[in-house]
């Protein structure tokens, strides 16, 4: 067992983990943050995407011990003060989800995309989300949701 200290959604945790524990399993099994999902075992699907020190990572490809000292944001921590993140709002408004399983990872990946490119074209969104698979929506409404969020975030600059 190894002891790690991780800040997740603003709250600090100190835990003993097996060195082989993946970050996604740490979040789900140890912290009971089950919003982050596991959709594959080869880092293809992106359902497990979270933010580590501000950048999106596939949490199935990070060991929990690598997150020692890091700041993690999961889907549970994205809404602030009861206000949905513009992406969460966009996915809701534009029907960007059906079964909802890929959605947390998709939203976290899209948040990182918008951080790097606040005004992406449709093509840039489609390429930017290549690491996240969705089987329900055909991506059409996901693209619309990300555009919605981009426009909303442009209209109200982050403080």
């Amino acid at each position, binding site marked *: 067992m190894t002891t790690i200290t991780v800040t997740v959604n603003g709250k600090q945790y100190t835990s003993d983990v*097996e060195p*082989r524990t993946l970050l996604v399993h740490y979040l*789900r*099994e140890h912290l*009971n*943050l*089950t*919003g*982050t*999902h*596991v*959709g*594959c*075992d*080869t880092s*293809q*699907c992106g*359902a497990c995407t979270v933010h580590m020190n501000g950048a999106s990572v596939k949490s199935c490809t990070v060991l929990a011990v690598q997150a020692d000292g890091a700041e993690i944001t*999961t*889907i*549970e921590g*994205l*809404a602030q003060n009861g206000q*949905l993140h513009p992406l*969460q709002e966009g*996915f*809701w*408004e534009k*029907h960007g*989800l*059906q*079964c*909802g*399983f*890929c*959605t*947390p990872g998709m*939203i976290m990946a899209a948040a990182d995309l918008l951080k790097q490119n606040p005004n992406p074209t*449709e*093509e840039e*969104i*489609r*390429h930017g*989300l*290549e690491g*996240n*698979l*969705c*089987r*329900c*929506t*055909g*991506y*059409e*409404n*996901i*693209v619309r949701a990300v555009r919605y969020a981009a426009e909303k975030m442009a209209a109200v600059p982050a403080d």
Partner: protein
Amino acid sequence: MTTSETMFGRALKRREDPRLITGRGQYVDDVRLPGMQRVFFVRSPYAHAKILSIDTSAAESHPGVVKVYTAKDLPATPVPCGVTIPGIEQKVPNYPMIASERVCYAGQIVAAVVAGDLGTARDAAEKIQVEYEPLGVVVDVEQAVAEGAPLVHDEIPNNISFKWNLSGGDINAAFSEAEVVVKQRLVNQRLIPNAMEARAVVGYFNQGTGEMTLWDTNQNPHIIRLLISMLTGLPESKLRVIAPDVGGGFGSKIFLYAEQLLVTAIAQDLLVPVKWAESRSENYLSTAHGRDHVTYAEMAFKRDGKLLGLKVKTYANMGAYLSTFAPLIPTNLYGTLLSGVYDLPALDCEVYGVVTNTVPVDAYRGAGRPEASYLIERLMDLGADELGIDPAEIRRINFIKGEFPRQVVTGMTYDSGDYEGNLNKALERFDYAGWRQKQEEARKNGRYLGIGLACYIEACGIAPSKIVGTVWGGGVGLWESSTIRFHPTGKVTIYTGSHSHGQGHETTFAQLAADTLGVPYENIEIVHGDTGQVQFGMGTYGSRSLAVGGTSIVKSAEKLIEKGKRIAAHLLEANPDDIEFKSGSFSVRGSPDRSKSIGEVALAAYVPHNYPEDLEPGFEAQSFYDPTNFTFPAGTYMAVVEVDPETGNVTPLEFYCMDDCGRVLNPLIAEGQVHGGVAQGIGQALYEYAVYDENGQLLSGTMMDYAVPKASQIPSMTTDFAGVPSPSNPMGVKGIGEAGAIGSTPAIANAVMDALSSMGIRHIDLPLTPERVWKAIHGK
């Protein structure tokens, strides 16, 4: 008939989304119970082998292991096939839930390890020694039926589980009259459904109450409860199956698999909660695959393009065993749709259900209908090409026109449709003529654009019991049920036997009920997916939820309103026959000021006093609705692709959908269903293929090797709806869950062949990968 007051037709955003976009959904793998143990299944690495011995001793002594199971430790429960097609001989191999003597596909379960955490269970599983004696393997259907092929099951000669025929009209006359016959061998390749949530089961047997609870990633929990009850003897009253938030199904979560039975047995044995959650690679080796047909087809035409007849011989790969609904898919869900939207005078269809050493094949989005649609629409294009007629024109010549309902050569009676009108609208809105011009201009610049169209039809609203249960051989009827329960405060809970695993029933069913009951949408809650709460249900597949489950809600509402009239009559001191109900209000005919709202009636029903003797308290109604016919959604899909002759790469550029799904309850959701279906259909056309090697090893065994389409591989889509109401149900709805996956594959394939036609290429089998297209172009 949408008005400002009705909810029907409104693009409401979904009420299930807030929990799902904030990470507060509850999927089966999210279920945490005190003392819960993890189950890991040991699976055969061989596609076909005798099991000589299994040594579990090292695993049993592995630290942290609770118990190791092999067949000798568990009841000999079979995984059932739920379909016996009448009038034919159907050989059903025995499918043990855990193999003891022989394994027939790579992935079949031979042992189970239980430990406190998954890592420990997996570590211990690696210490289990299984001695196998490999046997001959067949994976290809045509090789499987060849003389001398290894037998998957000794009791199934030639590996043919069943042979099924469907014919109509005079096929010999049709072909002797023919002026042009097009022939083609078509492969409808094996696909993996790939719901983003893989399967999982949590089981807990409460020794105190004797109740077994299963949380199961499933589309029809009551069917699972029924089958497990029948197989294990656990009474339904002591077995609760909960399918909470389910992360997509596409058919693959309909079935009863070995794992649900094994988790039930292990939970009963250990008396602690146990969880099994499959990995993606495990999902590929254990969850039912889809499609996998090899077909020889001939279509006969007159010189003027008039269709005369269709001969079809299909070898359907069933996999190693017959899964729950498997025999229905390549027979009654396939052959019966082979008339398409066309006036086909004669049909002869012969289907062989073939067993091979592969994962069992069962329903996957569309289930039989995509295979039929692909076949017809490819052959129509081959016919058009041969006859020198435009693809749109040859379809127009052959459409079913005139009066509906219309019985076609397959025996199906189409409910309603305007196939020519649908095509004409699609051609205009898509600007078919404009695209033909652009195609010509692009050719001058050395670019190969292709335009493809497909006019699909499907049978949805899968019920009617009379047909499904008896003629088709389902053995059980496929109605749907609902209960509407008014609470005294006027709030409403509706229990439906339909199941949502992404379709949004919590929203759409509440919309429907709000109109019917005249109650605010916000006051209605939909409950589904729990046998402990919902009376009974047949679940969701075959685009049946709204047409069958939704109609059941309308029928329950009608019953409730009848009772409400009697209560209102009592409260208003009027005759029940004089009470009218409109927009949530009961009033006395001719005196609209004398009225009671449905909420007031509900309260009165729960606090009755001075009630007439014949009036029961309470305000709740239940109905079981069984339609008299299927619904027949149809439509025209159009695709533009560009083929790069240097690389063989196909880029889909535009995709247009014109769907007739009857009346549309929620356009936002209907459109989303089309988008998702189209992406899966494009996946089949261009990317996806479950490939086995000759030893029965699944080469496309992970998401690295199986190409689930990415956002950048799917074009932007335009959707349109031009509905002709269905007379099969009072709402006039038809279903939209599968359409996208049915119409899009042939549209894309036809577009690719259109792009390549100047090179003399008439057909390439799916998926149209760069390698296959390049080889066709370069004559390899």
